């Protein structure tokens, strides 16, 4: 206790004094500029590097599932995708914003820097099941998101509508009118049955999958049936 410098009661009490008059001095604030930010007429920019929605550089992503392993909410699901009729060689993360906590640990651990984030943070939807599809997000290229952000400047989610075309095909209607179409082939670390050739599972991928990858395999197959059905 010798270290502690103690402020004795007298000193603490001396700081304040009971008063009727002093509260009236607050009246001076009537003549000061209000602190209110008049949204929607004014707006505040989020801080640079504010942790918002994800982006993914599809070329860089190696499908190592580090992001899926570190995610505290298990919001990241490795997904096998088909873009322009050509299946991607590695699975890519799909983020579920019904779970994501925006901690961006996934971005921190990404070994190739493929997964990134933008400052966009606003996603307002209705309460129907169709609206909730928006929260299931296969991240698109960072350049596209940045372009949309610069054009609109209101930090909204780049997608306005998700259209399901059947057979796992999904079309994103982006805010600038363009569309982005891809197909979900299956889930998991291992490739789904449609993609699997003999000896196609590379040793490196299965190693990154950790302990659960063995059972994941069957799971992915099951999932694929579901997607196609």
């Amino acid at each position, binding site marked *: 206790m010798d270290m502690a410098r103690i402020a004795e009661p007298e000193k603490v009490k001396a700081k304040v004094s009971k008063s009727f008059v002093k509260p009236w001095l607050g009246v001076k604030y009537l003549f000061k500029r209000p602190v209110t930010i008049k949204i929607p007429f004014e707006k505040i920019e989020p801080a640079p590097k504010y942790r918002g929605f994800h982006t993914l550089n599809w070329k860089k992503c190696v499908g190592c599932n580090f992001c899926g392993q570190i995610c505290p909410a298990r919001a990241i699901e490795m997904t096998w995708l088909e873009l322009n009729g050509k299946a991607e060689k590695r699975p890519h993360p799909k983020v579920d914003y019904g779970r994501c906590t925006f901690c961006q640990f996934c971005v921190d651990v990404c070994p190739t820097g493929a997964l990134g984030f933008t400052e966009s943070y606003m996603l307002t939807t209705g309460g129907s099941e169709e609206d909730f599809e928006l929260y299931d997000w296969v991240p698109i290229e960072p350049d596209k998101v940045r372009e949309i952000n610069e054009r609109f400047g209101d930090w909204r989610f780049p997608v306005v509508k998700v259209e399901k075309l059947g057979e796992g095909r999904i079309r994103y209607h982006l805010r600038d009118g363009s569309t982005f179409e891809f197909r979900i082939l299956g*889930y998991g670390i291992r490739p789904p049955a449609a993609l699997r050739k003999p000896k196609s599972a590379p040793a490196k991928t299965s190693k990154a999958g950790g302990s659960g990858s063995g059972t994941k395999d069957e799971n992915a197959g099951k999932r694929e049936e579901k997607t196609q059905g």
Partner: protein
Amino acid sequence: MEEGNREEVAEVALNDVVDAVIERAPYAQGKVIRERRVEFSIPAEKLRDFLRVMKESGFEMLMQITVVDWLKEGKFELVYQMWSVTHSTHAFVRLEVQRDDARLPTVMDIFPVAETYEREAHEFFGIDFEGNPRLGPFILEPREYEKHPFRKDFSTLSYVKEIYGEDFDRYDESKTNYVI
């Protein structure tokens, strides 16, 4: 140099505190872990007696009662954590009880705050504190209380599936195998 001296002095003073406690309670084993941390392990039946000794030797506050469920050993380890304002020292008082028939006497007459901690330990681990009148559902609803959810043999994911159904996940209904 001076720093080191001060630490040594503190260590010696702590040793004295531990020795004084053990002198009054010879059944206990005590040691200094590091600066401002001491540790005692006692047999479960001496709990009330020992806490009284601790309170009289300057450990005024019971900070919390931690329960660790050692499933393989079949034991609950209880850590009564105390803080001494006089010595500026944190003490862990460790004891073990059998997992299948966990009961202990209450210490709420020595430290009234123990009432809350015991209710919590009872609720989450199912340890009976004899003499505490308020054991029962406290934070949890009765349905979860029955399960004592912090026990190691309670699997929260299978419980979630039981309560909310297999489709508790909105987007992937077949997500059955989770790796974290």
